[in-house]
């Protein structure tokens, strides 16, 4: 292990080397572009040993990954926003074919208007594709989560593709030190990919994906659902092993800070969840019993963890950097759904903000937490959702 100083995107390219990825297929889009750029350089300099297919679209990028993974190769791509949306058909395909592809998504707003800054609508609109989803908050976490993602995706109990999302610019282009692992160091944790289910091989000519009638289709979908949910068991095992091997741990499926005795817990995905640590610490100093729960694994949704938190908090302040138009914040909706059958149902206040890359500061977060504290005090939940910092 050695320390490197790089942007998150460059670190992601390094994760591809560390994980001994065999095929990368990617297409440029801001702010993900520097991932394929850096992989190209590592490829041309012989540091990345696999194949890099410089495809002509993101749709082709994901289908090239599908082809590669189907033939038994470890495959990776990176994209953002419109690129992720163009992949839609392929995302569903990869998941249903049970191909353990890893995708680094750099969250960016969806057009129109053109806006290259962070909003989570791109990946959140892909929650239902079957892909396991992580949201990360630091360069180091991005790098190591990509490595972990391969192990999780390839686990026989899971066999689902994994998407690791990082906030555009705020994280993707932030330069920060991270702990780099040589491929030799990673080998023990991540052995070569050997498809345990099916593979394209002329010596054993099975075919994949021909017609399935209604009498069986549902059973395949059920297994996808089970595979996804299995990662709730498998990921903690992987994390424990990773911690043992490399001393790295990023907080489980929901990274918590001062939640144990908290009455109000602020939840968020991505960098806002890390920003909130300072807000919580400042409020703690003022005597407020508050904490932050940063949701790292978003699909499958860590329902049990949310319920555990709900058993001792009085309110959640859920912050979403994206919108399910007509129904509100993605995470707020999911948290509320997770709690419906729970004996403990604290308030879930929903905040939407930071869209299009608008800054979410410590002050913003404090304001949101304090408003939630007031809701607890008055016993009034207030509006179904609040658009934070909305101009008149």
């Amino acid at each position, binding site marked *: 292990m050695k320390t490197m100083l790089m942007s998150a995107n460059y670190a992601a390219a390094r994760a591809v080397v560390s994980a001994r990825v065999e095929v990368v297929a990617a297409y440029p889009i801001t702010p993900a572009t520097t991932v394929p750029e850096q992989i190209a350089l590592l490829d041309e300099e012989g540091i990345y040993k696999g194949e890099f297919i410089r495809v*002509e*679209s993101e749709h*082709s990028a994901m*289908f090239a990954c599908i*082809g590669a993974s189907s033939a*038994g*190769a470890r495959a990776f791509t990176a994209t953002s926003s419109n690129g992720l949306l163009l992949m839609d058909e392929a995302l569903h395909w990869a998941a249903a074919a049970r191909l353990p592809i890893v995708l680094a998504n750099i969250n960016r707003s969806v057009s129109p208007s053109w806006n290259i800054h962070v909003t989570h609508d791109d990946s959140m609109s892909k929650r239902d594709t079957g892909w396991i989803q992580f949201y990360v908050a630091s360069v180091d976490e991005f790098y190591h989560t990509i490595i972990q993602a391969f192990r999780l995706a390839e686990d026989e109990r899971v066999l689902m593709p994994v998407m690791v999302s990082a906030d555009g610019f705020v994280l993707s282009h932030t330069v920060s030190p991270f702990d780099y692992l040589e491929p030799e160091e990673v080998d023990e944790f991540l052995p070569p990919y050997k498809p345990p289910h099916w593979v394209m091989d*002329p010596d054993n*000519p099975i*075919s994949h994906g021909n017609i399935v009638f209604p009498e069986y289709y549902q059973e395949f979908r059920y297994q996808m659902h089970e595979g996804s949910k299995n990662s709730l068991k498998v990921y903690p095992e992987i994390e424990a092993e990773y911690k043992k091997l490399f001393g790295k741990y990023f907080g489980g499926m929901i990274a918590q800070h001062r939640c144990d005795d908290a009455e109000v817990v602020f939840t968020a995905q991505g960098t806002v969840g890390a920003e909130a640590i300072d807000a919580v610490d400042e409020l703690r100093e003022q005597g407020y019993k508050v904490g932050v729960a940063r949701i790292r694994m978003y699909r499958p949704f860590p329902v049990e963890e949310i319920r555990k938190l709900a058993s001792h908090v009085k309110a959640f302040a859920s912050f979403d950097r994206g919108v399910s138009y007509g129904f509100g914040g993605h995470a707020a909706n999911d948290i509320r759904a997770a709690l419906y059958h729970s004996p403990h149902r604290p308030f879930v206040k929903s905040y939407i903000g930071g869209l299009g890359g608008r800054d979410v500061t410590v002050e913003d977060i404090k304001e949101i937490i304090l408003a939630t504290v007031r809701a607890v005090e008055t016993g009034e939940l207030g509006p179904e959702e609040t658009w934070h910092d909305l101009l008149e």
Partner: protein
Amino acid sequence: MVAIREMPMKEYVLKGNAACAGCMDTLSLRHALKALEGDVIQVVPACCTSVIQSLWPKSGLGVPVLNTAFMAAAATASGVRAALKVKGRDDTQVMVWAGDGGTFDIGIQALSGAFERRTDFLYVCYNNQVYSNTGTQRSGATPLYAQTTTTWYGKTEPEKMLDLVVAAHEPAYQATANAAYPRDLYDKFRRAREIHGPKFIHIFIPCPQAWNYPVEKGVEVGKLAVETGYWILWERIGDEFRLSPQSKRYQDPSKRKPIEEFLKLQGRFSRLFKPKKDEKKIAELQAYVQHRWDILLRTFT
């Protein structure tokens, strides 16, 4: 040309599959796979060939088939090729087997990208000139005046000259074939097999369902396409162009049968003959035959 008795007996298109009776697509695939002797990973986008394979958990094809999305055949094949390269299996063919819809229309971007990247694979377009899978809608390969379920009174534009588009990518090997000439087709697949780089074979596939001709007449219809000069058999190894013997004699327009003979066998052209013969439109199609010859020879010779 290969003698029938020299062709491998082993079958990779297995009997009892889901193709229509008289399917010229399965006939072509049968000989293509014999030529490749099964050392192939076949990539199939949405098309009739996705159906022919039959229902899960059975397959009617004795080679590994990776079914993929309609517009993604060449991209999927690119990934398969890259994986094989990493695994050191350079001799295994990666073959796309796509319909005209998946090639002329929705798949053309991926096709262009894969060829520009000089991907070592064989892209086969089996051209039945229509979207058969979804019930006979027009495609970019549907000829002028052919009736389809989206051009009930006949298509108003001629087909795209896809071969020229492909040629612009300077493939390592390019050929046209015709299901009615399986030995020529077999030879072309044998030649393609020996060449590395992007390769393209474009097969003319009469379809009894979509063209509405008597099911036993597939070979006759296919041969008429060549004998009228409508479908030209040729190949190109690098820059070296040659007309295949079956078409060579029809370079001379006086040797060609009138296009009408090809048209009148097929229900899809019935409006050219009923309620009364439309001489003008038939003449237009006849003239188009020469136009294609002129362009082809001007481009390649």
